[in-house]
């Protein structure tokens, strides 16, 4: 098995008003990878392209070492996909939908499917149109997990869900992952969930990947710095410094500790420097703000 579950190199997809990429993304096997970014950043487009929903303009995408276009079917047999955007309406009822989908997978586990139906409290005979939003996501999860995929792609799986449903879904996901060392890619802007459940992270904005690495390392790598600087001070162009606000002589900036940004600021005349740790949410907002 390849060491990387997903390997994206130089991916470009152009729309009339948006361009994804060039994007390089690496998801290690067995990782729970959070792909985070603001709305319209390109998270869903990336996942869609992995699943063949649209054609890329350039680049390559490999899943478990297989080419996403040439080995489409083999890849999809190993993927489970969860999204609230899946419409099951044409299948009428839950049982019809499940029976339809199961026939496409050789390794569909009926016993596990029954277990999930009971665990997620899904009504087997319920009409799809009568399902609540949360229950539709649960059905999506049921379909994705029942064939015990090697890779789970979750596109905003908990968007719009209440805390209880969210908890149910994540606990089910975690148990599925812990049992069998699956790789999970979660695309979300629910930062608290991503921070809690993921061990790797990629931050995407305007179609470009800003950061990538293990969640702990990324969060540790950055600090919020408050400092005082005389009039005329301007930190623009200092590598690893992302200015957040300025009030008179007081500045606040996000700094990349790997780029020796604090030393550089001091060299330019920053004084009374105080550092504080950041949460993923702080980091996300700070980077998004700096880019704006």
């Amino acid at each position, binding site marked *: 098995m390849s060491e990387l579950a997903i390997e994206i190199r130089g991916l470009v997809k152009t729309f009339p008003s948006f361009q994804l990429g060039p994007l390089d993304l690496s998801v290690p096997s067995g990782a729970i990878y959070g792909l985070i970014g603001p709305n319209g950043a390109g998270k869903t487009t990336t996942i869609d392209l992995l699943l063949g929903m649209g054609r890329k303009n350039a680049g390559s995408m490999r899943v478990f070492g297989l080419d996403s276009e040439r080995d489409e079917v083999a890849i999809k047999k190993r993927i489970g996909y969860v999204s609230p955007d899946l419409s099951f309406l044409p299948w009428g009822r839950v049982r019809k939908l499940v029976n339809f989908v199961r026939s496409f997978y050789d390794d569909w586990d009926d016993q596990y*499917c029954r277990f999930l139906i009971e665990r997620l409290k899904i009504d087997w005979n319920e009409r799809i149109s009568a399902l609540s939003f949360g229950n539709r996501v649960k059905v999506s999860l049921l379909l994705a997990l029942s064939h015990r995929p090697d890779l789970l792609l979750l596109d905003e799986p908990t968007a719009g869900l209440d805390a209880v449903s969210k908890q149910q879904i994540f606990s089910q996901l975690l148990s599925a992952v812990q049992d069998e060392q699956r790789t999970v890619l979660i695309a979300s802007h629910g930062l608290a969930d991503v921070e809690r459940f993921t061990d790797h992270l990629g931050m995407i904005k305007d179609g470009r990947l800003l950061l990538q690495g293990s969640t702990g390392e990324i969060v540790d790598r950055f600090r919020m710095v408050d400092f005082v600087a005389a009039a005329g001070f301007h930190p623009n162009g200092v590598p690893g410094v992302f200015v957040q606000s300025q009030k008179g002589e007081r500045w606040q900036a996000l700094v990349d500790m790997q780029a020796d940004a604090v030393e550089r600021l001091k060299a330019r005349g920053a004084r009374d420097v105080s550092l504080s740790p950041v949460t993923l949410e702080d980091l996300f907002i700070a980077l998004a703000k700096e880019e704006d």
Partner: protein
Amino acid sequence: MRVLLSDFLHRYRWWFLGGGVFCIFMSWLRVMDPDMPNFILMLALIGPICVAQDHHRGSLKVLAVLPLNRRTISRSCWIEAVVLAPALSFVVVSLGTLLAGLTGEVWYGLGTLLEMPLIAFAYAGSMYFFLTMMPPASYQNVLAKSLSVLAALFWGLLAGLHIFVASLSLDRGGGIVLVACGLALTVFSFFSSFLLIERRTALRPHAKKKRPAACEIRLGGGATGKARYWLESFSLCLLLSLGIMLFMTLIFSLSLSLMRGESPLMILTHRSSGHFVMVFLLIFLLAFGLGFQMRTLLGMRLWRTLPLSGLRLTLLLFLLPAGNVVAFLVVLSLFLFPSVEWPGVFTLAGLFPVILALAIVLFALLLQIGIRNLMLIVGVGGVFFTFFGILAAFRGAEEIIVRLSSLPVVVICILAAIVALWWGYRCIQSRSELYRPLTVAWGPFNAQR
């Protein structure tokens, strides 16, 4: 209300303008050949269709939050659907008559000139009435759902029979009865318009929380997966075709018997014109061919995540139009079998390649333009409908069937179907839009988001 009306007219100005030009053109053809079907009511159709399109796009939710009371919204909807298009058809007919009079031709007589707007008004009003009877949500009770299906049937019936309705005359007793019924429905529609607004702008009532029933989870058994899906679609189509054909034949024969004073059985077994069946053929091809495929397109995102190659998915999806065409032809042949004047089922079977090619081309078109653009789909359907209507009017339905079954036409159709299949494959492979979720609730597919 003035703002609402002018906004509506502005947004749909090309439809009204196009409809007006089309009606003038068709009426001009009719001056040359009085046996041509009367298309003047095509214009009256535009009002209710545009309003339906507006509702489909969720305009009512937007209007509901504006500082307008619901009565104003419902009245403006009623005027948009019922009054504007007949008024325009009156203008068109008057202008045409005036122009024809200047060149010494007789286009429409004075009687028709006065009758036509009234019939158009009753027609548009009836169409709108049935639209107001279609509850939007799928969580309604059985009675509401049945009512919705019935209203949809009548809507389709009226839309399909507009040529027939346009040839109504107030000189005959039957015509007066039908127009009077239409006017009564128009009056009802004024009041039911308010109900429509209430329903469409209301929040979704909370469904009763029920515990999942302790049912047996039966997985598998019988045809599953692709086969199951295809069979279900096929059998449902067959059943619906049969039911609706029965229903429409009954209505048609009863209406004709009212107008001609002949028994309904006589009309059914001795049809003097083949237009009726030709029109049926196309309406059903569009309704079932496209209708079922639109249902499929709602689930495209799931289809694409399944372990199927693009080519297999294309072939599988294009099996649906084929199945629907077979189902449709089986039902149609059952109806045509007892007909004395028709060449019979075997001749009709010669039409299969043409209809199949048409269904495949239409499905490819649906993949290209997407389910969102309902108006364009209706427009394309209208073009086919008109094309065959004109052909049937000039040549006669029997001759058309013979011509369409000829070898060159069949070869062209097969080529067109192959190109359409290839095009469909390209769309499935490359069109990201195809997999985007629908954000607008629409009729029976009401996506509750």
